[in-house]
């Protein structure tokens, strides 16, 4: 009746944030499932309730040999993924000093908060984050999904494709996972979105950021 006193310190932690309806939970669930497919233990958590009512939504994913807490401690996320600019900034303090923030600069005005709050929208969030010394990788996913694929709603899967090049997971886990988790009639579109994001990730010239997130684990077959 003993449990090993292991710590989750060696786990990879990803926090995904966005607005209800953007598909935050799909991204985090697919990361967790990809990790399991690659042989890791994984936990994913979120709080339901506002996800279809335009509220702020965020989800934690942690994977590794052993994972205890499903909640990522503040300041210990390897990656924070913001599908929307304000929500990215809201969770930026979760990033560890050598981690990175992946940011879709797409803006969704928080109209339910009223005009006074809308006036405080942080349009310059990416610059602000860089000035604070945070590695910030911009992925204009919503814009690209609309322009290249004709559908802004697959921006989340485009971001997932981008993440696939940063995470310490083998690239061959993703195709089967998409086929398994995405309804057949939308699979082709989602595959294109994923491929577009992955291509962007490979082209990303911020090699330093990639090294810090991925190679630190020594597990990215690239």
């Amino acid at each position, binding site marked *: *009746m*003993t*449990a090993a*006193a*292991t*710590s*989750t310190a060696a786990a990879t932690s990803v926090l995904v944030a966005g607005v*209800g309806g953007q598909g*935050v*939970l*799909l991204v985090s*669930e697919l990361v967790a499932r990809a990790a*399991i497919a690659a042989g890791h233990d*994984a*936990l*994913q*958590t979120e*709080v*339901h*309730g*506002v*996800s*279809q*009512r*335009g*509220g*702020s939504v965020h989800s934690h994913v942690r994977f590794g040999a052993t*994972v*205890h*807490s*499903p*909640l990522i*401690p*503040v*300041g210990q996320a390897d990656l924070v993924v913001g599908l929307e600019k*304000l929500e990215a900034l*809201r969770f*930026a*303090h979760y990033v560890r000093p050598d981690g990175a923030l992946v940011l879709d600069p797409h803006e969704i*005005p*928080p*109209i*339910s*908060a*009223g005009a006074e*709050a*809308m006036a*405080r929208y942080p349009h*310059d969030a990416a610059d*602000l*984050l860089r000035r604070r010394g945070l590695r910030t990788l911009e992925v204009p996913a919503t814009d690209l999904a609309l322009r290249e694929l*004709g559908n*802004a*709603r697959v921006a*989340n899967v485009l971001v997932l494709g981008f993440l696939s090049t940063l995470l310490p997971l083998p690239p061959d886990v993703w195709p089967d996972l998409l086929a398994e988790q*995405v309804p057949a*009639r*939308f699979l082709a*579109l*989602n595959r294109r979105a994923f491929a577009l994001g992955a291509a962007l990730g490979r082209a990303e010239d911020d090699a330093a950021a990639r090294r810090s997130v991925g190679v630190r684990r020594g597990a990215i077959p690239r």
Partner: protein
Amino acid sequence: MTFLSGNQALARGAWEAGVRYATGYPGTPSTEILEELVRYPGVDAHWATNEKVAFEEGMGFAVAGGRALVTMKHVGLNVAADAFMVFPYAGTNGGFVVVSADDPGMHSSQNEQDNRYLARMARVPIVEPGTPQECLEFMRAAFDLSEAFGTPVMFRTTTRTAHTKGRVRTGERFEAPPVAFTPNPRRFSVPIYGRQLRPLLEDRLTRLAAYAETAPFNRVSAGGHPIGVVANGISRAYAREVLPEADHFELGLTYPLPLVGLLAFCRDHQTVYVIEEGDPFVEEQLCAAGATNVVGKAVFGPGGEYSPERLAQAIDGRVAPAPLEAGLPLPARPPMFCVGCGHRTVFDVLGQLKVTVAGDIGCYTMGALPPYEAEHLTFCMGASIGNAVGLQRAGVTRSLAVIGDSTFLHSGLPGLVDAVYTRTPVTVLILDNGTTGMTGQQPNPVTGHDLAGAPAPAVDLEALTRALGVDDVVVVDTWDRSGIRRAVLAAMAHAGPSVVICRGPCQLLPEMRAQDRQPLVVDEALCTECNACYRIRCPAITPGPNGLPTIDAVACVTCAVCQELCRYDAILPLPGNGRGVAAPPAPANGGAR
């Protein structure tokens, strides 16, 4: 190996335990359990009108000898408390487990009550899982425990355990043999024989306390470290994260506590942190039993959800990074009515009329938020009508109640009967969207079908309210803003209690989402920038790059409320379907609950 949420694993565990009957009332974070369980063969699963009815049905089934599961959120057990407190006197034949889904942090609840105290009051054992795997295994074991001691069992989850997904090893179904039922008033007619049954209750508790000392739900990992941790549920994971080197006494059975083992654990350690969300339930019992080196709420603080950083800060002062701000505080993003939601028009009208409104529990609770602020008191399920009666009798005229269809049937009905009986002229708005919306569109007795999708009789709300004695009942289209205004004013002028049924389906219902609707567009040549369309606060209408209002063609569901507001006929159907491509998949688990 599958990837399941705590709720899914718990449903799987109940199925594997041989549960044949499952019922409950929707409530975050418990709702997905029955939605999952109904997919398994051999389980009769359905939504009940309220938690008390669900509990009583489960009691009947278990007394008759079968295994029954009853699910509800923490405040739901208040509704079922009458039955919960009495059932243990008789005890059960077949296994009986009630899920109490507590909500530390009040993510989607009106209070933070710790239901472990209710179980202690009822002398019912409490099983608390901490991982998805335990949700499955502990559920199976909870049914065995129930039958071994002839006791109902509380299975307590929290929002975090219910909604955390992880790897789960599943097993096979155990077809539990029914326990024979012999009618026996001396056991099951508790009001008559309660005094004789009372000592048996204490005897069972004594036997359970002895069992707790070696119960497989509890685990100790001790290696001689001076720091000990006693933790339950999800807090065990945070404790392992923050104090990996310490010795851990992990509780899965939190009532009755294994006090002999716990006191020995306390003696063996210099300091023992008791890490439990909610109230100091374990801590107080340890202190009462004589432990003197226990540290709990004094450092971790009362209320709220725990997290690794909260524990770390309390234990060794490690301070986590603070949220960044862009000079000014970041704007919040509260939830709001969906695009095309039929509640929006109601609260726009109520705000305009400046009437006093008692609200209720459902999506329409958001009517209390800016910009409407058109609900003035909201407490709990079904309270609106009784509250309005009280307001009215205190001289706040004229008081209105706003309540949804599911909540009205859940516990609003007796309030309306009372308004009629006491001849109190309140006006009750029943927002009938045909579903239990807030928790994710569960069918209810007005819907016309059941949890399994089979056709079911639909309650006729007009006939029902008239039959109760309300002689002024009108039905209005919930998207007809001026119609609602006229109906509410007329109902308020009525001498006795009056009912306005605002009817229109929830936009998130599958049949509404499947409709091929032609989105609306602002004709820029006709738009005068009067901004009247913003009045309805539709999330799909925002200022465009040229300053004119624009309608998001993907989001618009053509409720056409903005069309009514536009005096210049500048809002028109968009040529074509405006969406270009088929809608992409909704998030796999994006259901709002």
